[in-house]
Structures are given as structure tokens and as C-alpha cells.
């Protein structure tokens, strides 16, 4: 994150206050980091069992943006901390996500730095490494990214696909949008409906899990076809109906972008 240009002003680990990591001071609590270093965003790596605590602590300390990288957080915890953060107008990204990055500016996440190039493509993804694959393809094709948001693979996430689309539609430095979806839930169908109504920028999509069997949870807590709902076909159809071209292969996203 430091190499990416992020101003990392503090780390927080209870009991480790007073130490330094890569020259960055460590505090025992979030409110100390906010008071002493004016931290206004937080990235959460703490183990799943303590993630709810970390998010609420950050919200109460006055943090405005929280990226939760931690995977395997019980979603009943997310059902508590997500609405709570929203009630305080705090933006949460994730959980179970690689974070977010704006090349040339800052990164709050674990994505590899070298795949990014500054540019005007906004990327929204439910996945981690698949995002790297696609961002890499976008960069190698000569495009670059304005911002990449890994919204997370859990069923209960802080910023969903529609909200991320709305942000990119408003963002002046974004000219084109890439959406990386997967099976499970109706995020892609909702996104398609939103795009048809509200998004004027060209959108290209990829949907993972075309060959996933129903009833099986494909690694991500949110990636499951249940009761015939959440299939890749339904998502691809919804995108196509909204005029969004869907890549068959991940790298094909780049050539579809070139054609928009």
C-alpha cells in the first residue's frame, strides 16, 4: 500500500501500541489513530471472529471509509455491522474482498500493484484473483483503471454492485465500466436493470460460474445457485437485455472494451 502511494498513517493492534512497522506507528485503538494521526479510512484484516468489533470500533472512532478484507465472517455479524455503518453514513467495502485501488493515487487492499495502470476504466468485482486477471488484461491491452473496487464475495456486503455503478457513473475520471460478477444472488440482475435506466457510460461484463452445479457453494459464501436462482445464464441474459456485452473469457473483457 505504501508503494502504491497510500498515506498509511497508523496501524492498530490491541496490545501492540508504541511499536512501529515500516516506519508507521502502531496504536492500541482506532480512536487513538484518528486523534493522533487523523486517519479517515481503515482497512480491516482482523480474523473473522473479531471483524464485527473492528468495524464498529472504526465507525465509532469517526472513520468514513472501511475496507474489510477478512473472509469467512459469519453473515449474521455483517447483518449487524453493515446497517450500523450505513446509519452513520460510513461506507463499507467488503467483507471477503481484495479492497479498492485508484492507480496513481492510493490503494486500500491486497491487489498486486504491478497489474494497474492509471486510466479511465472503472472496475467492479465480486472476486479477488479473478479481478487481478481481468485488470491485468485491461492494462496489457493498453487501457488503464480509474478505480477498481472489489465489492466482495459474501452475501451481505457494504457497497453493492448497483451502488458502485452509481459511483462510477458520477465519477469524472471514469469513462468506461467493467463489471465482474459470478453466480448466486441477484446483484447482476439488479445491476443490469440499474444500467439500463441510469448508466450512460459503456459497460462490459464477465460472469464466472457458467459451469457451476446448482446447490453447491463455489468457494465464496455468496456463490451458490439456490432454487434455480442465481444462475450465470440469468445474469448474462440480464446484462445482454440491458445492452451490456458479456465476455466469454476473462481476457476478452479487454477486446470488448476496445469495441465500445
Amino acid at each position, binding site marked *: 500500500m505504501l508503494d502504491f502511494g497510500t498515506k498509511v498513517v497508523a496501524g492498530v493492534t490491541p496490545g501492540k501500541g508504541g511499536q512501529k512497522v515500516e516506519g508507521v506507528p502502531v496504536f492500541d485503538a482506532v480512536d487513538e489513530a484518528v486523534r493522533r494521526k487523523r486517519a479517515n479510512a481503515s482497512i480491516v484484516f482482523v480474523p473473522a471472529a473479531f471483524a464485527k468489533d473492528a468495524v464498529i470500533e472504526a465507525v465509532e472512532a469517526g472513520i468514513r471509509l472501511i475496507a474489510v478484507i477478512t473472509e469467512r465472517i459469519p453473515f449474521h455479524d455483517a447483518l449487524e455491522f453493515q446497517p450500523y455503518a450505513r446509519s452513520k453514513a460510513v461506507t463499507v467495502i467488503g467483507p471477503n474482498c481484495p479492497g479498492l485501488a485508484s492507480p496513481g493515487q492510493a490503494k486500500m487492499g491486497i491487489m498486486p500493484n504491478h497489474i494497474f495502470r492509471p486510466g479511465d476504466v472503472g472496475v467492479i468485482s465480486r472476486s479477488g484473483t479473478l479481478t487481478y486477471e481481468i485488470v491485468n488484461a485491461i492494462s496489457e491491452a493498453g487501457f488503464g483503471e480509474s478505480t477498481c473496487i472489489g465489492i466482495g464475495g459474501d452475501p451481505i456486503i457494504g457497497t453493492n454492485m448497483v451502488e458502485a455503478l452509481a459511483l462510477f457513473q458520477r465519477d469524472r475520471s471514469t469513462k468506461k465500466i467493467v463489471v465482474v460478477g459470478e453466480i448466486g*444472488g441477484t446483484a447482476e440482475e439488479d445491476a443490469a436493470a440499474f444500467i439500463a435506466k441510469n448508466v450512460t457510460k459503456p459497460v462490459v461484463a464477465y460472469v464466472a460460474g457458467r459451469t457451476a452445479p446448482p446447490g453447491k457453494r463455489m468457494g465464496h459464501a455468496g456463490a451458490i445457485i439456490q432454487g434455480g436462482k442465481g444462475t450465470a445464464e440469468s445474469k448474462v441474459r440480464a446484462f445482454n437485455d440491458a445492452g451490456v456485452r458479456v465476455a466469454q*473469457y476473462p481476457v476478452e473483457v479487454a477486446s470488448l472494451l476496445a469495441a465500445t
Partner: protein
Amino acid sequence: MKFLEQKAKEIFARYGIPVPRGVVASRAEEIADPPLPCMVKAQVLVGGRGKAGGIRPANSLEEARAVARQILGMNIGGYTVKQVYLEERLDVENELYLSYSIDRTAREALLMSTPMGGVEIEALPREKIFMECVPVLIGPQPYLWRSLLKKLSLPKDIGEQVVDIARKAYDLFRKEDAELVEINPLIVTKNRRVIAGDAKLVIDDNAEYRHPEYANLDQDRTPLEQEAHEKGIAFIQLDGDIGVIANGAGLTMATLDVLNLKGGRGGTFLDLGGTDDPGKVAEAFEILLKAKPAAILLNIFGGITKADTVAVGVKQALEVMHANVPVVARIKGVNEDKAKQILRDIGMYPAETIEQAAELAVKVSHGGA
């Protein structure tokens, strides 16, 4: 975590939700005192038991044993029936439906109910279903029960019992970290009692650590999937012959999709996750090899995962297992050149892109190279 009907009903009863009397049996001979007349119900983790002949009536002890003998060992949806549940037969006046699940968009619990129970909820028109979100931070408020009663338009004495069950089911949904609590049918008997006819309960796998009491329950996993689960490896057996292993759920799914587009069929979904610990990688490969794939397709895109340490793990596993399965490897990320060299040294087929790797995997799985 999924629960057999009988186990789910045991948990329902703990929360005060009325359930029929019943006894469980895994052998016909052990049935001694079933609540007659009864229904003999196959205990499997899949739906469609009734249609498959897995739920049948019995009027005497002899008949109950005879029916149980027929149902035990039956194959329903790929699962062998190991247990039957013998349950008192109810005089059904009508059947309702009640469930709690989650609304991903609202980020709240979702209460669904309808007076037309006993059928698949998906088959009903939307306007026949009462659907209301419950903000988990606040919990259900009295208006929720008022509108539920209005929608179901039930007589007062029955409505009160339904609301009482709805309250208790919500309590269960929250305290047990459930992703689904479903009562279908919720039976109204001729003597005006409301009882859970069936019970479906699914608990969040990620909350397993808060519910150690359920750790040893049978799940709908293959023996190999069970072994992987115990080792904390995300692994699913599929019906193809090419073992797919990648890092990250989305990338693993995408790799399977690309393989399919190239004419191959994935035999496994194995998500290595964020690990590059050679020991863990070796463990994952051991599971993969036990699935006896014709070829293995490894696709790694490193972030925090280092490519060369993954390669070391792969090497160790193949050496220990003495495996001579062809492996096609596509590795990108930190130290990828080192990784490629390690893999080449042990005779793997290197590939630059997923597409190339998939094509090559299809070829070597047929014995070509």
C-alpha cells in the same frame, strides 16, 4: 451446515416451536413404539423425498417396520437413506408456509409466509406471498406480526399460534446463525393446533466455530469433500475428468468455465485461497490426486500469494504421492519465473494464459501433449 428433518425439529423444539411426536431409527428392528398411526419419513439432506417414495404411512408396528425396511437404503437424489423418522400422523385442516432467510440487497432478514403451504414457494405467484424484511439491529416489531396476520387472514386463535411460532423461529434464526429456517408445511390441525410439519434448517458454515455442537453432523459431502473440509480446503467434486486447482473462488470458477469452452470437463473445484505455504499446497494436491483426475490444470494468479512457494508445494506433493498425472500449470505473480523453472524441472506443462492452459489440459488428458 444442513440438518436432517429430525435434527432440525429437535432444535425447533428447543426454541418452543411445536413439532409432531416422533422417533428415529436406522434399522427396522429397533423400532419399538412408534406414535401410531404414523408417517415413515426418509432422512436425507435433499428435497423431493415424497415424490421419490421416501415418505409413507403406517398403521401398525409391523407395517411401520415393513415400510422402514423398504425406505432404509433407498437412493434419493444420490443419497442413501440411513435413517427414518417415524412421526405421528396429523389430521390436517390446512397447510401454511413460513420461513426466514436473508435479503442480500436490503441487508436484512427476510420473513416469508403464505396460507398456501405444502408446495414449492417458488411455484407460487408473488402476490400470494407475504414478504417483509426484518432489520436485524432492531429485531421484529409488533407491526410485523399485525401485517402478517392481516395477509394470512386466519382465525384469531390460529393466528396467535402462528405469530408465536414466527417469533420463536426468528429467535432461532438469529441465535443459531441460520441462513434458512423454513417450515413447509406449517400445519393447522383439525383440532386447531399449529405444528411444524417439516423443518428445514441451514446454518452458516462460517459460523461453525460458534456452534461446535453441530460439528460432527453428516453433511451432503462426498468422502473426499469431507476430508478436504476437515483440512479447511475449499473443494468440490464435479463430474468431469480434469482436476482444476486455482487460487480464489472466482478464478477457480472462471478456470472451469474456460476449460468447458475448450471442450474439457472439470472434475474438481479446488480453491487454494490465499495460501502459498508449501505444506498447505501439498495437502491440497493430495486431495486433488485422490479424485483420480486424468490431468490437472493449475491456475495461479498471485497477489499476496508467492508463485514459487506454490510451485514448491506442488513439487513436494507430487513426489510424496508418486503421481504421474500430467499437470498443466499457469502461474502468474511474484517470483513467477522461479516458479516456472521449478515446475518445468519436474516435467509439468507450462502455459502463459488460462486459454492455453485449458487447451493443453484437454490434450494431455486424452494422452496427447
